[in-house]
């Protein structure tokens, strides 16, 4: 591996330059901002009304107020976190600007840091209004989860960044041929991380897979909190350990893919 890719001289100045670049882009285009809010709102409303209907039938869901809306909001944090990261990266490919960046003193680790910050910025623009709408429409206050929400958020963001970093590596190595992965890869997590149902619903062999994915712990933890009113810190710690492993593996894969892109000349070809 090329050691200079890791970059010991991390510069916050260069990271802030990149954040500024994405902020200029975001604020210059109202459809980009609308896109951040539109789909999470539609999802939240659809699942919220479905939950209202199910709750009227009593049983478990009568006690589990907000479990669907909570799931959909946390899922959006995971999904939109990765999408925000990947879209910012794709913007450079759309603009044919990667050559300028790769030739500049910007280190890959600084580039990634800027993308991580922008994924939080984009997520905040999209999700904060939606959480307020959830209070307005369904009386579900995600913010009332307090410390648990912080733990959920941290773990979901770590997973979304890991996936985003891996996808960025694939884009560097394979060009726009890997673009569709940026949009769809997270959907693999939707059934396996048990967003809307408990892990026990899965067949035994898939439960092993589910428990190897950090978001599963978050969604299980959310259900325990909303149904049984118990915050299981151990689940968050286990998710965190898995996330550290996932983040390290994704970073390593990114550096290997970047090295491979330099060998195969892929950095010269931003197209197909």
């Amino acid at each position, binding site marked *: 591996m090329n*050691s200079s890719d890791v970059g010991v001289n991390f510069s916050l*100045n260069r990271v802030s330059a990149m954040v500024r*670049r994405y902020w200029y882009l975001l604020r210059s285009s109202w459809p980009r901002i609308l896109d951040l809010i539109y789909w999470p709102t539609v999802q939240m409303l659809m699942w919220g009304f479905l939950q209202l209907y199910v709750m009227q039938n009593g049983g478990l869901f009568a006690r589990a107020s907000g479990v669907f809306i909570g799931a959909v909001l946390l899922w959006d944090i995971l999904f939109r976190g990765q999408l925000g990261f990947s879209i910012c990266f794709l913007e450079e490919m759309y603009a*044919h*600007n990667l050559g300028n960046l790769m*030739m500049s*003193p910007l280190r890959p680790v600084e580039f990634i840091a800027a993308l991580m910050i922008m994924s939080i910025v984009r997520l905040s623009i999209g999700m904060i209004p939606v959480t307020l709408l959830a209070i307005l429409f369904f009386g579900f206050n995600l913010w009332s989860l307090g410390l648990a929400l912080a733990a959920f958020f941290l773990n979901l963001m770590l997973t979304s960044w890991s996936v985003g970093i891996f996808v960025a590596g694939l884009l560097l190595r394979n060009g726009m041929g890997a673009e569709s992965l940026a949009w769809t890869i997270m959907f693999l997590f939707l059934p396996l991380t048990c967003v809307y149902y408990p892990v026990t619903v899965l067949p035994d062999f898939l439960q092993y897979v589910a428990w190897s994915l950090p978001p599963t712990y978050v969604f299980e933890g959310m259900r325990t909190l909303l149904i049984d009113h118990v915050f299981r810190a151990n689940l968050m710690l286990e998710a965190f350990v898995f996330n550290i492993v996932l983040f390290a593996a994704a970073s390593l894969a990114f550096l290997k893919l970047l090295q491979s892109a*330099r060998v195969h000349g892929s*950095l*010269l070809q931003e197209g197909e």
Partner: protein
Amino acid sequence: MDASTPPAIALERVVKFYKSVAAVDGITFRLSRGSITGLLGGNGAGKTTTIAMIMGLVTPTLGTVSVLGAQMPKERYRVLHRMNFESPYVGLPMRLTARQNLSVFAQLYGVVETRERVAKLAADLDLTEFLDRPTGKLSAGQKTRVSLAKALLNDPEVLLLDEPTASLDPDTADWVRERLEHYRHRHGATVLLASHNMTEVERLCERVIIMNKGRIEDDDTPQRLLERYGRETLEEVFLDVARGRGTHRKVAQ
């Protein structure tokens, strides 16, 4: 210049294979500091790969590439802030204004007093009036000027140019050449220019390296190349090399 000072750019027996195809096949050259050199060759001659290896975007299969004494790509972060490049094939974000693009890159290159630097370059390159327009709404000539400003933001000691006047009208192209000459004389920068425009190379370059099928076919001053091939223009020399008549004509001389 101190004899111990490494050359601005040095390639030593550089080979680059893409799978089984040799894009660059054992080239060696050194560019002294402050020199301006043209890299000529037809499509697929290996110019772009050569420049990409100098920039650290492509790893050579064999041989070594160094810039200002740093091995590329391994030690590129030692020197990237002292280099820059311009190519019409590499864009700047279209929705950002020219000023926003330049200020972002100024910050990336660690330029102090960014605002003043951008204003000065804008004045030098006649950019001031459209500095606050989105880059995507500028004409080809205006975009080239913005790209050139980006390439000069950090006062680079090594400037790599890939067809800097492609798709420009003759007047704008001439204007760009004039600015490049001015910059080089004022800063003593080393310039490597890949171009298909022979008039441009004849006017700007004191040395010409001609590549064909990944190899260096010839390497000399424009005047000596014309004499050796018995031609009036570099374009005729280029055609001789590209069509495999180079060796024949040189022998005939």
